[in-house]
């Protein structure tokens, strides 16, 4: 049979060739990722520096992120204040916040923790890598200043939420010592925050910035906020009232920051990052729309496009009623609330069946009786620091140092003037303190500020009596539940404790 004969050497050759051709490619299994970048190849130019910084800015939006149905992460700081009601019961994590029965499993705590450290990790990359980039020195310094500010802001939130926290200030690898970081004491964390902000203060930032970047006013305002917090609970380093007043005063005396004349201007899209808005979380078309709006909107179709609310942030009626008569902030569609609005945004006026939060209502998008809404999405920024707060920080710190004086009285007067209220004629240090506190409650409500005031002062505004109760034992009127000592801190996320054996839980949450 011919099959028994090998048909010459050429067949053997062809076999060997086929194997060899392929074996020749020794780099066949090498990887080169061309659509992602690598830390070793990036951070080489000013463009890289800006891009890396943008990622840090973008990460600030974690506060508005989704925390299960009908809730955003920032509800953590709102639902527990007792000044808003949750009329939708479908999110049990939110329910447990409202009823002060939350544990370490709730999404809000987990998400804010994750968001904080994601921001920190990205900021750490900028802080570590940008100094080595060859680029114009003045911009390099500003970029670093912005990154230090953002890291400080994230840690400032975290230290007030959890107390002692892991303090990570440089990029991590899987083998890093801080990969399983233990908690750092609050005072050390505050020292780091102050040091970061001082760096920012010296980084040549412009005093104001209308694009939403970190400005000098923002740095000084945040410093003032940090100092007044350090002066209060839990550190009680009262010497920082002086620094708080000083930094606030520098903002007040600087040019460009002021109050808007009307409350409506505060939530006008065209006024973003201007005048009173010192710093905020930036939402924009082609980026992200403000996801928090739904929690404030009423369940009635009063928006162009038909957006209706979740009813997870409905004003608690005692708090609503606690505004003085004549306070413009309580006036329907003039201040912080509305009780009727236009169907479909610009149709017939209809009763909403109760007060809803108007403070963050984006008229340009949803429409009004005079403007037809765009209906393309709510891109209103979410304010983090308003000038009104700076005025109140100054007044409070200054009063703590030496009692009322012309400057501090004037600062409060500017707030009350806009509300259409007069100043009481004579004020003691104590009565001025109460007045300032009350202004803080009424001026800064629904802005994630009140809860931190409650913790810092260990006082809670009692909206039925108009006076202030001690934190521990105060009963939230929306839920009829009382605050306990443990509520001064939130629990460390349960999963984090499991994944990091070096962490410990806050008291009362085990």
């Amino acid at each position, binding site marked *: 049979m011919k099959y028994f004969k090998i048909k010459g050497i050429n067949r053997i050759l062809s076999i060997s060739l086929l194997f060899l051709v392929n074996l020749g490619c020794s780099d066949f*299994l090498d990887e080169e990722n061309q659509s992602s970048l690598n830390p070793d190849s990036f951070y080489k130019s000013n463009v890289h520096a800006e891009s890396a910084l943008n990622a840090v800015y973008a990460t600030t939006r974690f506060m508005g992120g989704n925390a299960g*149905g009908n809730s955003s992460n920032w509800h953590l700081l709102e639902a527990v204040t007792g000044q808003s009601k949750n009329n939708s019961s479908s999110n049990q994590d939110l329910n447990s916040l409202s009823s002060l029965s939350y544990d370490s499993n709730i999404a809000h705590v987990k998400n804010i923790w994750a968001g904080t450290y994601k921001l920190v990790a990205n900021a750490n990359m900028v802080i570590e890598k940008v100094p080595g980039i060859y680029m114009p020195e003045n911009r390099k310094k500003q970029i670093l200043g912005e990154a230090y500010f953002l890291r400080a802001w994230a840690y400032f939130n975290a230290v007030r939420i959890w107390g002692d926290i892991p303090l990570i200030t440089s990029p991590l690898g899987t083998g890093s010592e801080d990969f399983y970081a233990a908690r750092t004491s609050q005072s050390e964390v505050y020292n780091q925050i102050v040091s970061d902000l001082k760096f920012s203060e010296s980084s040549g930032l412009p005093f104001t910035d209308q694009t939403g970047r970190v400005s000098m006013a923002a740095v000084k305002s945040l410093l003032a906020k940090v100092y007044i917090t350090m002066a209060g609970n839990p550190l009680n380093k009262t010497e920082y009232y002086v620094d708080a007043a000083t930094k606030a005063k520098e903002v007040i005396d600087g040019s460009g920051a002021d109050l808007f004349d009307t409350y409506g201007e505060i939530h006008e899209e065209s006024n973003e990052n201007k005048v009173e808005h010192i710093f905020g979380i930036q939402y924009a078309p082609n980026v992200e729309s403000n996801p928090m709006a739904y929690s404030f909107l009423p369940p009635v179709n009063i928006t162009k496009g038909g957006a209706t609310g979740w009813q997870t942030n409905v004003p608690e009626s005692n708090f609503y009623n606690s505004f003085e008569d004549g306070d413009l902030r309580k006036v329907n569609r003039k201040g912080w609330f509305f009780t009727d609005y236009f169907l479909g945004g610009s149709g017939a006026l209809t009763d909403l069946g109760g007060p809803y939060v108007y403070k963050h209502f984006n008229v340009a998008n949803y429409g009004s009786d005079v403007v037809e809404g765009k209906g393309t999405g709510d891109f209103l920024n979410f304010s983090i620091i308003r000038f009104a707060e700076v005025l109140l920080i100054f007044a409070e710190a200054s009063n703590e140092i030496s009692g009322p004086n012309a400057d501090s009285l004037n600062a409060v007067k500017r707030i009350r003037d806009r509300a259409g209220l007069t100043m009481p004629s004579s004020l003691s240090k104590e009565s001025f303190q109460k007045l300032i506190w009350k202004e803080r409650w009424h001026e800064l409500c629904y802005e994630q500020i009140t809860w931190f005031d409650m913790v810092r002062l260990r006082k809670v505004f009692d909206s039925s009596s108009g006076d202030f109760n001690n934190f521990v034992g105060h009963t939230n009127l929306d839920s009829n539940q009382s605050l306990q000592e443990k509520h001064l801190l939130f629990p460390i996320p349960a999963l984090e404790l499991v994944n990091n054996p070096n962490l410990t839980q806050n008291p009362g949450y085990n």
Partner: protein
Amino acid sequence: MKLNHLLSSNWQYNLKKLAKIMKISVLLSVIMTFSSFAHNNIYSQDKISVNVKNTEIRNILDNIESSTELRFFYDNDIYDFKKKISLSLKEVTISKAISLIFENKIEFRLKENVVILEKSQLIEKDNVVDIKQEDIEQRIITGIITDDNENPLPGATIIEVGTSNGTTSDFDGNFSISLENEDASLQISFIGFETQTIAVGNSNNISVQLTIDGSSLDEIVVIGYGSQKKSDLTGAVGSIKESQIIERPVATINQALAGKIAGVQVNAANGRPGGKSKVRVRGISSINSGNDPLYVVDGVQLPQGPTTFGLSNTAIDYINPSDIVSIEVLKDASSTAIYGARGANGVILVTTKKGKSGESRVTYNSEFFVSEYGPNATPKRLNSEQFQMIEQLAYDNIAKFDPTGWASGNYANQEPSKKRAGAFLGDLVNELFDSSGKAKYDTDWYNELRQRRMSQNHQIGFSGGDDKKTFNASIGLRDERGLLINSYMKRYSTRFNFENQVNSWLKVGGTVDFSVRQENNQDTGPWVFESATHAFPFLPVQYATGNSPFFPPWFLNYASNLEYGFGTGAGGNFMYNPVMDLNYRKFMTDSHNFTGSFFTNINISKDLELRTSVSSNILNQGRKIFYPQFFNGGNNGAIQSNARNVFYSIENYLTYSKEIDDNNSITALLGASWQQTDLTWFQGDGYGTPSDGYGPNNLGAASFKNSSSSMSREALNSFFTRINYNLKDKYFFTFTARADGSSKFGKANKWAFFPSAAAAWRLSKEDFLSNSDVISNLKLRASYGQTGNSSIPAYASEAQLGPGSLLGGSNIPGYTAGFGSASAGGTGLLTLENTGLRWEIMTQFDIGLELGLLNDRLNIEMDYYNRETTDMLLNAPVPESTGFSVIRQNIGSMVNKGFELSLNSINIDRPDFTWNSTFNISMNTNEVLSLASPSDIFDVASPQFLGGGSIIRIGEAIGSMYGFTRLGVWGTNEAEEAAKYNYRGGKTVLPGDIKYKDLNGDYVIDNSDRSIIGNGYADAYGTFTNYFKYKSFDLTLDVQYSIGNDLADLGLHWGENSIGGTNLYTTVLNAWTPDNQNTMIPQVRNASAGSVSLFDSHMVKDASFLRGNNLMLGYTFKSESIQRLNLNKLRLYVSAQNFFLLMDKDIMSDPQVDVANWNVAGGNVASQGFKWHEYPKSSTFVIGLQVGI
């Protein structure tokens, strides 16, 4: 002289058949061996002459012995050897001579020069009649029986129809038979081949070609890099044949597989035409990496995992099932190990049609079908009258559930009469309601979504060839219209393959497959179904009298829930009408799939062969998405994207096959393979074009634009070997080893080695069973081995920076910053480096039993397996203080244990009536053995709005549903106890509120009160198929069942609780009232008055079902009646698919679900059984035609 098995020619024959039928060149040398053997057996070819008159047969035989070297052995009892006959034969083969001498009443076998005469099984001795002179004069028909490759078939039975007259073919396939009747027909049958009946007509010489019968035990099955006789297999291989594929006319191969093979679970997610199905072989083997099996089409491996734009479709979905002749599923480690790295999730081998030598064929298949909503496909909703009754009740009950709010008038506007009078409707209120407030319309929204369109499928095939070259070509057209308006899938497919035996040592061949698939997907989001479920029944689709004052003119006259007071739009808070959506929104995908392969087979020697194959799969997908203005409050959106997935591979392997002697044979394989996949993707988005008229086609006109793109490459390099050893046809051994290198792992861990071993023992070949009348086949087999899984994204081991994952529902990367109204791209951390990343390993043990009873009329095959996955590639959690939540790590293990049983039975086998049954059952249990951190992984399949849903926990099964337990509803006598609880947002818990199980007894219902309440995977599943044939009619009845799978019906959340804003499920009619306290449904009240809805045991249903998959009635025209039309086949059939469904009445719609890819349920392995509104399943009615020329 009594002689038993001097020689069994079966094994030779089977090898020969194997090689020739399958054309697997691995075995080419075997053929050659055999051919040479055949040629050496000169006596079969020798011609003898006989010329005797009235001579005793025994003397004739003596004469032959003396004139040739032939020697006859026989038992005197088997025939009357003293019978005298007269015969004149000149130069005939010994076979023919014997046939004529013994009147075909004796069987004989030939070995070397020995002729063994045996008693024919066909004819009893008693029937042997004395031969008469005139019998010789009878009409004698001669002929030859061959297989479809023209290899002679010895031993085929030829019977004259209607008589007991018959014979068998000789060693060369020749036969001769004296006919008893005029107008006779011959029936030719042979084990393993389809029986044929042929009218003799006027011809005296007939050649008959038999074709393989797919159902035989002796069938050849394709295994990795080769093929084997089923009886020689050492591994667990399931197989289905063309005849089973064409039973159910379906769009994709995966759908054709459904229920056909034990251990293979196919879950069709929904009823979209050409829709996605998920195939799982022996359960879930991996939490985080891929669970899709590997598909190999004619030896060409396809890319694994979903295609970029596939909506879970995989490359196999682009191949036309009509081109398939067989599908084999490799299940155990021994059979999959040859695919090493890619075989961990099972391997599905697809063999397509090939041409046959000497035969030109044209086939034409055609189907027309219509679809209707399947049984229970759509949820049961309130009609207008019921809705208005519940609406009023819900309002009245506010006084009970929120007395404070009621007293302060917070709900005044929600009084139904005020809602009707709301300003949104304007004058339209008169169109909707009569003066008493009663609704005039009663719209069934699902009815309005439906289109009634005819679908069709056509396929033309050509095949042919000569002894050197064969080809097969086909062209197919499928135009499938879905149930929903504008839902379609069109596929144009062509496939061509050829093979050419160039010379004695070289064979070349190749395949080109090209298909175009165009679809408009109406299930890209849940909105359509969600809103059809929740749209008010009192609204029309479009107002007859004009547009609502609430909506701008471009909303046309379409109605929306938002126009009614406190109505909420389903699927998001925007104005929406599902019919409008189907009419105007576009989500079109155009896929061009090309597969090409080329091979050469070189016979280096008679035993050794080299095969080289080069193949490529190129999937080019373009997608156009368009959201008209109404979809987003007046702002339209257009997206165009393109993905190109290029896969290619080069494989070389040597096959050595050797019959060492009669008892030993060996097949050894050694090969190498290189594979690479390149993926590029580009997308451009535009929002706010001035007019919907541009559709998706002019992104430049948009006011906001955005674009993004990516590329990736992955490569796999492998070396493999396999040795099959066959000892005495009784003992079979297989050893396989494969070394794989993957680009995805860190430098030090790219390579892994996967060995396996298997053995099988055919007890039925042993002496103690070989004579059994009952047991015709008994085989035990066992295998043990490892395979690997690397189905993770490329670059997972590297540190990566990038623009971030896309923000939900947009094309904007997460690290994009906003400054004022401008956006600025960012570069941030994506993944952390893990250089230690390595292969996920699966170790599988399998033990199987194959049993054939009563001459294989009953075949039983069962397997037990234990598959353990270790070093699971898990996106394992790390402390989030690192800035990362997970790192891809090798941590965790799980085990799947299961039992599979298949039964095939020929219940009745008569000439004009046959009844076959097939039954299979698969049972699989899964247990997570270890995880990265010992803590539970929660809510991987989280229903977004309910804050929980699934859990991965050590000691429990993947797919566990995790939630609260609903005990019922608090009764009026439990008011005091209920009031102790706190879970209604601070409001007092009252009789009529849901009663949850308080696991830790703290009177708070929170996360610590959750437990495992179900599992989405079935305990057992399978099919039961019956096939009846009566004369020309055939009937197939195929039912599918699933036992013990749970369904998490998330639709119940809005369906029973969104009271006031939307339509509801009919279950609320059974809500708690003081008179109806024994119910699971809480008292009806306006949702804003405090209703609690948590993911709980009430939403989890036992979704066991029994489904009528297919009922088909066919009629095959008799060959004599269609010969006049020059046809060789003509069959007509009608079929009804999904024609009945038995299930728990509690379930609101079809219980069989996969996971929606919508964010609602995560879409991963843990979310099996989570149901959220989806494209309804259909019942399909088909009429079809099959023609062969």
